[in-house]
């Protein structure tokens, strides 16, 4: 039932602007792959190309080894869920769910049976006869999904399906959606700009920017080993700290320094990065903050701002012109103006080539 999707050298131009640039990607059977990127990065265009609403300027769309560039959208049989759900507003829930079956001319009994199954899967059985305009956001989302699932599509494309939902529901549906995919073992391409969604749901994430895929990998790969400044910044909340830094070699060690903040690597590790301007990048969650600021390894910083978030607290720290964010447990309860000691484990620091934005370590 699941399908393998391959995109090969896809390029899409709108007039003089290039929306998608030489995009090659393969989605394995039963895989949940996220296209993650900021708005305008070309991820929705890619989706439209897969669905058949846009013809690629160049390149092939291949499903299970078959090139489908010339297959019209209505014959591709690809399930597509839109960001705005695109529920047929003039129809009831049942009519929405059964639409795909009705246009295929299925019998009433078969339709009712299949719709019934999907409705119960998505907890929509009670709502079947309601007009779609009366639904709330989460119901709409489920109808949009059900409308597609009822056709048992081998390939499911989801375009920001959670972005219109309230935080709490989003959290629940995130889990449900992933669960459902794992049960149905469907191949899913999921488009989102929300890195938390991508992280939490995907088998693999393809991070896109300006029409190109910058990195593909499992969520933890992407999180731990970003290959570029863009990926590093885009993933993680609060965002990664990036500081311009200087490199000095002290004995067998390379020391990366920004103001008073220094991290020492052993030479081999930093070999590649010895030339040019570099930046050091580390996640707020990797910053070690101590009340005791006199520790040898710690750099003394002042608490500038405290943002309690409940389960954790974000503190903004400052020393001279150095400003970083750190995440501390709520019980740490720092106060503004307090002096703290800060250290960063070397293995948690990435070095970025300032000119190219490529992560060199």
């Amino acid at each position, binding site marked *: 039932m699941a399908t393998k999707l391959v995109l090969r050298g896809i390029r899409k131009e709108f007039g003089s602007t290039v929306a998608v640039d030489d995009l090659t990607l393969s989605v394995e059977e039963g895989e949940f792959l996220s296209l993650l990127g900021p708005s305008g990065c070309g991820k929705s265009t890619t989706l439209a190309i897969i669905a058949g609403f846009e013809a690629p300027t160049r390149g092939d769309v291949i499903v299970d080894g078959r090139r489908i560039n010339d297959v019209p*959208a209505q014959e591709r049989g690809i399930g597509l869920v839109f960001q705005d759900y695109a529920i047929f507003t003039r129809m009831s829930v049942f009519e929405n769910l059964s639409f795909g079956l009705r246009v295929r001319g299925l019998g009433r009994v078969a339709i009712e049976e299949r719709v019934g199954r999907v409705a119960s899967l998505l907890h929509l059985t009670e709502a079947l006869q309601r007009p779609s*305009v009366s639904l709330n956001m989460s119901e709409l989302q489920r109808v949009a999904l059900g409308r597609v699932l009822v*056709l048992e599509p081998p390939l499911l494309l989801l375009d920001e399906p959670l972005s219109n939902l309230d935080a709490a529901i989003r959290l629940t549906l995130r889990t449900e959606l992933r669960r459902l995919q794992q049960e149905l073992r469907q191949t899913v391409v999921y488009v989102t700009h929300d890195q938390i969604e991508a992280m939490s749901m995907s088998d693999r994430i393809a991070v896109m920017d300006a029409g190109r895929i910058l990195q593909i990998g499992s969520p933890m790969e992407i999180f731990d080993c970003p290959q570029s400044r863009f990926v590093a910044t885009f993933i993680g909340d609060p965002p990664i700290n990036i500081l311009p830094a200087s490199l000095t070699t002290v004995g067998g060690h390379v020391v990366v320094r920004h103001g008073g903040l220094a991290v020492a690597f052993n030479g081999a590790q930093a070999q590649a990065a010895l030339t040019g301007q570099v930046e050091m990048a580390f996640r707020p969650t990797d910053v070690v903050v101590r009340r005791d600021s006199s520790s040898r390894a710690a750099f003394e910083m002042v608490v500038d701002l405290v943002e309690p978030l409940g389960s954790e607290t974000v503190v903004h720290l400052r020393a001279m012109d150095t400003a970083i964010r750190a995440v501390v447990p709520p019980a740490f309860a720092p106060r503004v103006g307090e002096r703290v000691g800060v250290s960063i484990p070397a293995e948690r620091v990435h070095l970025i080539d300032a000119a190219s934005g490529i992560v060199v370590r």
Partner: protein
Amino acid sequence: MKATVAANSTRNVEAQAEGIRPTLVQHIPFAVWLIVPAEIVLLSVVVFPTLMSLWLSLTSWTPTSGVNWWQAEFQWLANYVQLLFGDERFRAALLRTLLIVVVGVAAEISIGLSLALLFFDDFPWKKIAISAIILPMMIVPVDAANAFFMLFRDVGPVNQLVRILVGHPVRFAWLSDSNLAIVPILLVEIWQWTPLMFLMLLTGLMALPQNQLRAAVALGASRWQLFRRIILPLIAPVVVLSLVIRSVEIFKIFDPVYILTRGGPGTSTETLSMWMYDNGFVYFRIAYVAAAGFLVLLVVLAYVLLILRPLSRRTAAER
């Protein structure tokens, strides 16, 4: 009565300017104040003559009788009775007008919709084609009717075109054959106002939620299914609106009839307005025409409400 409210509201506006927050009750007059100028115009130009018409419709007044209208002989509903039960020509004009409304509006909307669907997709020179197609609605109706008069004369180009099509000379008497004369009249209306329908419906189509259409396509809908099940229900409000706007206007159809046939041959193209013009301005049976005017208003109102009812019901449901 509304004028006095207006005076209050002016004070209210000053009160607002002084920074005193008006209460809800004080708020209403400001609202009324805004519609006062429009009301004055409507009251003076429309409402007075309407009331006078109402009075006249209950009398037997005619300006050629030499009696002042307010002294006219009161005769209750005699005019209405006569219109409804004794005037074959009026009834025929009413039915004919209804026919023109139904045929004209149906043609305008269906052609307009077809064209709009045709223009839904992009193609080269689309803008120019649109400009050409909407040109007729900008022609002064009297000029349009004149142009059609020229076209449909029996020595006119339409017969010439038919001749080219059928291969031998024809002399359809478009304007003087009682069976044909309605054709040019309908055609002017259709020619002139289909562009408006086209434009409204095209705008409607363009404003449709694109993703619903895409969703339907992705779910496998064919062109026809897409149109029938998705597009049509979605643009229904625009269609109904077009329907109402055009119907109301066609009900009053006058210029083309006046110019093309003056209601002839015989009375075979006499519409309500033409009938009223003849009775009012030729026979000067003004009281009688006034009564007819009210009957027509009732018919139009009933028609409009009938059409609008499902729409407003749905809007209510959506709220």
